[in-house]
C-alpha cells in the first residue's frame, strides 16, 4: 500500500506492506536510524517519536497509521544548524552514556517541556517512566531536562556537571 506522511517537515511517500511498523519504516525505508528498536513491547521507549506533536512508541504504531500525519524524530530536533536546548542539556549534564535510549528520551523530554516549561523532578521522572535507560540511572537525565528548562527560561545559573571540551 502507498503511505504518505510528513517526517521532520518533509513529505514522504512510499509503497509499504500494511503490517510495516513505523520504527522500521523510519529506519529501513527513510534511513532515519536515530529512532531505535529495543523491545517490541512498548516497554523500553528507544523508539519514541512524535506523531502530531505527541510522543508515541514507533514499535507499536504501523507506518500506515502514520499516513496523513506529522512525524518528528530525533533527526528533526536540530533546527537550522542549532541544537535544541534539550540536546544541549543532555550533553552538558551527562544525560547519556551508550546513546541508545537517548533519541527516545530526547523526544519525550522535549514534549514534556513544550507542555510544562518548568517541570518538577517528580514530573520529569513520571514523563520518562515509559522509557528504560540501562546506563545513567536516570538522575543525570533528570538534570539534563532541568538544564534545558532553565536554559529556555533564561534562568540557568548553576554550573554544568561537565565543562566544555
Amino acid at each position: 500500500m502507498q503511505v504518505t506522511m510528513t517526517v521532520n517537515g518533509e513529505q514522504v511517500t512510499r509503497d509499504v506492506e500494511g503490517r510495516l511498523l513505523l520504527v522500521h519504516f523510519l529506519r529501513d525505508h527513510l534511513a532515519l536510524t536515530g529512532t531505535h528498536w529495543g523491545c517490541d513491547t512498548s516497554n523500553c521507549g528507544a523508539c519514541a517519536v512524535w506523531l502530531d506533536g505527541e510522543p508515541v512508541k514507533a514499535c507499536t504504531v504501523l507506518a500506515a497509521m502514520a499516513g496523513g500525519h506529522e512525524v518528528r524524530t530525533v533527526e528533526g530536533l536540530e533546527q537550522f544548524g542549532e541544537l535544541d536546548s534539550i540536546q544541549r542539556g543532555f550533553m552538558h549534564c551527562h544525560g547519556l552514556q551508550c546513546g541508545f535510549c537517548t533519541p527516545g528520551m530526547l523526544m519525550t523530554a522535549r514534549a514534556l517541556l513544550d507542555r510544562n516549561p518548568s517541570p518538577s523532578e517528580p514530573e520529569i521522572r513520571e514523563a520518562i517512566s515509559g522509557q528504560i535507560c540501562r546506563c545513567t540511572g536516570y538522575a543525570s537525565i533528570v538534570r539534563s531536562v532541568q538544564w534545558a528548562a532553565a536554559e529556555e527560561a533564561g534562568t540557568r545559573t548553576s554550573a554544568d556537571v561537565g565543562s566544555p571540551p
Partner: protein
Amino acid sequence: MSFSKLARETTHSFSKLARETTQRFVDNDLTPMGHGRMLRKEDPRFIRGKGRFIDDLQLPGMLHLAILRAPIAHGRIVSVDVSAAEAHPKVKLVVTGAMLAERGLAWMPTLSNDMQAVLATDKVRFQGQEVAFVVAEDRYAARDALELIDVEYEQLPAVVNVRAALDPSSPVIRDDLEGKTDNHCFDWETGDKAATDAVFARADVVVRQDMVYPRVHPAPLETCGAVADYDAVDGTLTLWSTTQAPHAHRTLYAVVAGLPEHNIRVISPDIGGGFGNKVPIYPGYICAIVGSLLTGKPVKWTEDRAENLTSTAFARDYIMHGEIAATRDGKILAIRTNVLADHGAFNGVAAPTKYPAGFFGVFTGSYDIQAAYCTMTAVFTNKAPGGVAYSCSFRITEAVYLVERLVDCLADELKMDPVELRLKNLLRPEQFPYTTKTGWVYDSGNYEPTLREALRIADYAALRREQEDKRARGELMGIGVSFFTEAVGAGPRKDMDILGLGMADGAELRVHPTGTAVLRVSCQTQGQGHETTFAQIVAEEIGIPPADIKVVHGDTDQTPFGLGTYGSRSTAVSGAAAALVARKVRDKARLIASAMLEVSVADLQWDKGYFHVAGDPAKSVTIQDVAMRAHGAGDLPEGIEGGLEAQICYNPENLTNPHGAYICVVDVDPGTAVVTVRRFIAVDDCGVRINPMIIEGQVHGGLTDGVGMALMEILAFDEGGNCLGGSLMDYLIPTALEVPDWETGFTVTPSPHHPIGAKGVGESATVGSPPAVVNAVLDALKPYGLRHVDMPLTPSRLWEAMNGNPQPPI
C-alpha cells in the same frame, strides 16, 4: 610563507591556546588528572541520532537473517523440514544444524572451552536454542519463513532445578560429551579447609545463612546483532558485531572457521550497552558469517528482545550456603561457603581460564580474617548458557553479596550496629598490599575514611534516630550498609588468559605533523566514554589538548591487539597502556626537543605540553613544535627515526582493587510490602580519578542495576523449562520512578602499580549495591524477626516473608 612556517605558527598559537585551555579546565574535584569533568567527545553524534549501531548499517544488496529457536527446553530433534521455507519467494537460504555439521560448523567452542551448538543437530537443550536460520530479502520475510519450517521434537523431561540436576535419575543433558552420564559441570575449591574448620570449631559465634543470587540478565537496551560481509574475490570477511572484545573474537573466528586471521576484520561500532552481555560469541554471529559465505551477500542479523533475554548470557544463578565465625565482641574470624552454580546447558562462562568460578574467591571481602574456605559445584541445566555478565567483575557480585549479607546476619546475631561491626573488622591501611586468605593480593586501600565519608553524607546517626521514631509509630524504615572491595583489570598474563589469549592490551599513539594525535586502543566502549577518558589520559601525559586527540577503537584492522572491555578493565589495562604509550612518545619528543633547544636532555624540563631549558622557561618548544620537527625537513639528531609515534602492549602487574561504602535508606509499606528506595549514598574509591563526571555516571548506572536486582529482576523458569522473563513486560528493569536521586562521594587511594594510579570503576556499583538494598529492607523488617529474604524483594515475595513464609526464588 612556507607550509612548515605556517604550520609552526599555527601550532604554536594553538599550543598556547591548549595550555590556556588546560589551565582553564583543570578539574576542581581534587583530581590530579587534568581536564576533569570534560564533556564527552562522543555525545555530539548521539544527541543528533547519528550514532552508528549495528542495526543502522545498510549495505548494498544486504540480506536479512532470522533464527528459528527451540520452543521447548529439552528434546530430541526427530526431523527438520525446510522445504516450505525454501519455497518462499523472498527466501535466499535456509540452513539447519545438519547442514552446518556437513561443513564442521555445527559446534563452536565457548569461552570456557566447552562446546556449544551453533545450530542444534541432535537435541535442543534450552528454550530459545538456535535450530535453523533463514536468509531473506527483508527482515519481515525472514521471520515469515521461520513459521514455515517444520521441526518435529521428541520432548524430554527438562532439568530446571539445579538441586535435582545432580540426582542420578535426572536426564543427562550433555550426552554430546563422550562418556557423560550426569549433569555435573565442574567442582572447584579455594582457601584452607583445615585451618577454617579449626577456627570455626573454637569460635564463640557461628552464623549460617542460605541465600540465592537468582539468575538475572544484563539486557542491554540494544540487543545483539551482526552484519557479515564476505568478499569471495579477496577472501576477506568483515564482521560488524555487537562485541565487547573484537580482537579476541577475530582470533576465535580464525580458529573456528579456518579463515586466515589477517583476512578477518571485526568491527564493533557504537554499542548500545554491553554489561558483559556482549562478551561471548553467539551462534547468531556464526550464522551471519555462514549466511554471507553461502549467499555471497552482506547478511544482517538483529535479535529481538525475547531472543536476547532467553538465549544470551545470563548472570549469577548461585545458590550459596554461607557461614561466618566471630568472637562474642564482634571480631570476624573466618568465612566458609558452599555454592551450587547453575551454568545452563553449555558452560559459556567468560572468565580467565584458571578461574572457572570467576573471581568469586574474593568472598572474604574487605575484612581482616584468619581463615576462609569455599567449595563449589557447577551443574548443567536446561537453561541458556552464560553466567559471567551484568557488570559482575567475574562473579565478584556474588562474592560481595555473600559476605555483606553474612556480616549483617552476624550483626543481627550479636545485636551490634552493622556499621560498628564493619568498622571493627575492616582491613587497615598498613596491611596493604594485603593477601587474602584465598590468595588474592589487594593492591591498596584505606577503607575507614571511605565508610566514614558515607556515614557523614548520610548523617547516619540522624537516620537511626529517625528510624527509631518511625518504628515507634509502626512505620518500616530501613538503613542498609555494604562495604566492598573489587578486583578489576584482568589481568597479569602469568595468571590470566581467555582460551589461551593473554589478557594484555595494546595502545598505539601517533602525533601528526601539526600536533594533533590519534590514539588507537584495543578496548572498546559500550557507553563508558573511552573517546573522552582516553584522550584525557594522553592529554595529561603529553599536553596535547583532548580535543586534538582522536581515540580509535572497536576495529581490529585499525587497532593493536588486546582483549577488550569487560570486568571494569578498560581504564585499569588500556588506560595504563594509553598513559605508557604517551610517555614513550614524550621520551622520544624529549630527544628531539634537546636538539631543537641545543641543550642536553638532562637540562630539559617537561611542563605539560612543552619542554623548556631548566632555569629558563622562555627558551621552550611545545610538543606541537616537536611533532612538526619530527616529521619536517632536515636531519634529526643522530640515531633518531623520523615521526612521533609509539606502540606498546601493557601487561598489568596485578589487578586493581577499588573499594566503596554504600548506604541505602528504604521505606517498606506495611500494608503492601512495596519497597521504596528513598536515599542511596555511594562513596567510591577508584584511585586517581580521570573524569569525575563519567565516574559518577558509571556509578549511577550500577546503583540502578543494584536496585533492579534487589527488588525486581529475575529470570525465572517454570517446571517445563519455559523462560518466564522473555520480554520487558516480564523481566522488570527499574525506570526513573523506582530509583532515587543518587548521592555520591569519593575518596582517592591510588593504585601503586597502575601508571597513573587509577583503578577500574565501571562495575563497582553493580557489585556493591545489591547487598546494601537487601540489608536495608531486612533492617526495615526487624520487627518481623526476619534475618534473610532472597532477592528479588518484590512486593509479593516480601509479603509472603512478612507473613512468616519466606521462600527462595528457586
